[in-house]
C-alpha cells in the first residue's frame, strides 16, 4: 500500500491530481479461499481486515453484490457512541469506539472521526430516571458519560427549545457522552477496502451470492454470479438481506428486515456542533461538514426490502424536529432515502456461530450498526478464526433466544439507535 501523506498530496498536486494510484484492485475470484465474507459493507470489510491482521488469514475474499459504500454503510446518519445500558452491549460498542479512535492512523485513511459528543434527551421524569440509571451503568462499565440538566443542554445546543411552558416535548435534561460523535461513512468503506486489499484480501464487487453449498452440515462453498467458490468458512454480513442468505443455508434467524429512513436539509451555517438524539420522539440530528442537517428517524413498522419507507414516519419526525428546534421550520430538505435494516426482537445484534458448521452470521444490528462496524468486525473475525466467540460477543449468540438471556436494548437505546 502506498501511503497517503502531505508529500504525496503535494506531489500529486503538481500533476493536477491526475496520477493518483489505484486504492484497491478489482480481482476476479479465485477457486478457493480459506474464508469468504458475504457483504462488503463496513462490518464485512472490518471482519476481513481483522481476520488478516489479528489472525493471519490472508487468503480471504469479500464478496459484494453491489459496490463499496453502496449499502447501509453509505446510508446511515454516521453517529458513533457506546453508551448502552447492558454490560454485554457496553463491551462490544465500547470496543468499537476504541477502535474508531485509532483506525485513521492504523490504516492511513482519514475516517474524519469527530468526537463532538452525543446527547440523548429526556422529556419527562421517567426518561430522566432511565438516563441516570444508564449513565451510572455506563460509568461502571468504563464508558464515559454525564447527566446534564436542561440549562446545560441549552448551553451546549443553543437552538434547542427548552422553554418550560407550551412545549410538546419539554427538555428536562440529557445524557452526554463526550467521546461520541460522528465519522465519515464513505471513508470507512473506502479506507477499509484499501486496508484489506493491501493485506492481500480480494475485495470482489458486482458479485452476488446465489447459494451456499453444504455437505453433511458443513459449508463447502458459495455459488455466485461469478461462479462457484470453494471455502470451509463463510461469514454472512449482509444486514437487511441476512434472512435471504439464511434461507440459502436452510436456517432460520430471529430477524425482521425493516425500512429505515433518513434525510438531510439544505446546507446552512453552523448551528449545532454536537449530536442530539431523542429516543422518545424518534429524531436525531447532527450537522455535516457541508452544513447539511443530518436527520434520522426510527424504523418503519412493517417488513420491507424496498429501500423506501412511509412518508408518515418522516412527517412525525419532522414535526418533532420543528418542536425541538424551531429555527428549522423553514429549511428545505435536500435528500431523503431509506435503507433496509434487520432488527432482532431484543434490538441487539447477532455475532454468532450457526447450526451449520463453518457458517457464521454477523447481523441484526438493526438501526445502530454503523457505530459498531469495527468492534463487530473485530469480534466476528475472532469467532470465525477460532470457531469460538470472543468474550465480547459471546452473549450475542443465537442461543440467547433459547436460554432467555436476551439483551434488551429497546428501552435503553430507544428506537433511535
Amino acid at each position: 500500500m502506498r501511503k497517503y501523506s502531505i508529500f504525496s498530496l503535494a506531489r500529486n498536486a503538481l500533476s493536477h491530481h491526475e496520477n493518483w494510484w489505484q486504492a484497491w484492485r478489482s480481482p476476479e475470484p479465485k477457486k478457493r479461499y480459506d474464508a469468504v465474507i458475504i457483504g462488503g459493507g463496513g462490518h464485512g470489510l472490518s471482519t476481513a481486515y481483522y481476520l488478516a491482521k489479528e489472525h493471519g488469514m490472508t487468503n480471504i475474499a469479500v464478496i459484494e453484490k453491489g459496490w463499496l459504500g453502496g449499502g447501509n454503510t453509505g446510508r446511515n446518519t454516521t453517529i458513533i457512541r457506546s453508551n448502552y445500558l447492558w454490560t454485554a452491549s457496553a463491551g462490544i460498542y465500547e470496543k468499537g469506539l476504541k477502535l474508531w479512535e485509532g483506525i485513521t492512523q492504523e490504516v492511513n485513511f482519514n475516517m474524519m472521526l469527530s468526537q463532538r459528543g452525543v446527547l440523548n434527551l429526556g422529556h419527562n421524569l421517567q426518561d430522566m430516571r432511565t438516563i441516570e440509571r444508564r449513565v451510572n451503568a455506563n460509568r461502571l462499565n468504563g464508558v464515559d458519560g454525564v447527566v446534564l440538566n436542561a440549562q446545560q443542554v441549552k448551553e451546549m445546543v443553543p437552538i434547542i427549545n427548552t422553554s418550560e411552558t407550551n412545549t410538546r416535548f419539554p427538555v428536562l435534561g440529557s445524557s452526554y457522552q463526550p467521546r461520541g460523535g460522528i465519522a465519515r461513512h464513505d471513508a470507512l468503506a473506502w479506507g477499509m477496502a484499501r486496508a484489506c486489499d493491501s493485506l492481500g484480501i480480494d475485495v470482489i464487487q458486482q458479485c452476488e451470492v446465489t447459494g451456499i453449498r453444504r455437505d453433511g452440515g458443513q459449508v463447502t462453498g458459495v455459488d455466485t454470479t461469478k461462479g462457484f467458490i470453494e471455502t470451509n468458512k463463510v461469514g454472512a454480513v449482509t444486514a437487511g438481506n441476512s434472512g435471504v442468505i439464511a434461507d440459502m443455508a436452510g436456517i432460520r434467524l430471529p430477524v425482521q428486515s425493516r425500512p429505515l429512513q433518513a434525510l438531510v436539509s439544505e446546507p446552512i451555517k453552523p448551528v449545532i456542533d454536537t449530536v442530539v438524539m431523542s429516543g422518545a420522539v424518534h429524531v436525531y440530528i447532527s450537522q455535516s461538514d457541508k452544513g447539511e442537517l443530518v436527520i434520522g428517524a426510527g424504523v418503519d413498522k412493517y417488513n420491507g426490502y424496498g429501500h423506501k419507507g412511509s412518508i408518515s414516519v418522516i412527517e412525525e419526525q419532522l414535526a418533532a424536529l420543528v418542536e425541538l428546534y424551531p429555527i428549522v421550520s423553514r429549511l428545505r430538505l435536500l435528500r431523503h432515502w431509506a435503507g433496509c435494516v434487520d432488527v432482532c426482537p431484543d434490538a441487539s445484534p447477532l455475532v454468532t456461530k450457526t447450526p451449520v458448521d463453518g457458517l457464521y452470521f454477523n447481523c441484526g444490528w438493526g438501526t445502530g450498526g454503523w457505530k459498531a462496524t469495527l468492534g463487530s468486525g473485530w469480534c466476528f473475525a475472532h469467532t470465525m478464526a477460532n470457531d469460538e466467540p470472543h468474550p465480547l460477543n459471546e452473549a450475542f449468540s443465537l442461543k440467547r433466544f433459547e436460554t432467555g438471556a436476551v439483551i434488551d436494548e429497546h428501552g435503553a437505546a430507544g428506537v433511535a439507535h
Partner: protein
Amino acid sequence: MLYIQCPWCGWRDESEFGYGGEAHIERPKDPDSVSDAEWADYLFFGSNTRGEFRERWVHSAGCRRWFNAVRDTTTYEFKAFYRMGEEPPGGEQ
C-alpha cells in the same frame, strides 16, 4: 404511505393500522411438552421473506380488529386481504 383495505371498514391510510408481523404462526398446542429450541422457534424465529409475505395487521384506530394480508415486501404492493380464520389465498404454504 401504504393504503390498506380493512376487511370490515374498507380502504384507509396506513397510519390507522398497527403491524403484527408474520401471519399463520401456530402456538404449540402443548407448551409444556416442547423443548426450549422449539419454543424459541415459535416465539422469536420466523421467515423474513423477500417477496410475497403473509402478515397480520390491526385496524387500531378504527374497528380494532385483526386481519391478514399478503404483501410483496420488495414493492410493498398488497396482493390480498382476508379475515382471521380464512384460508390464505393460494392455500397452505
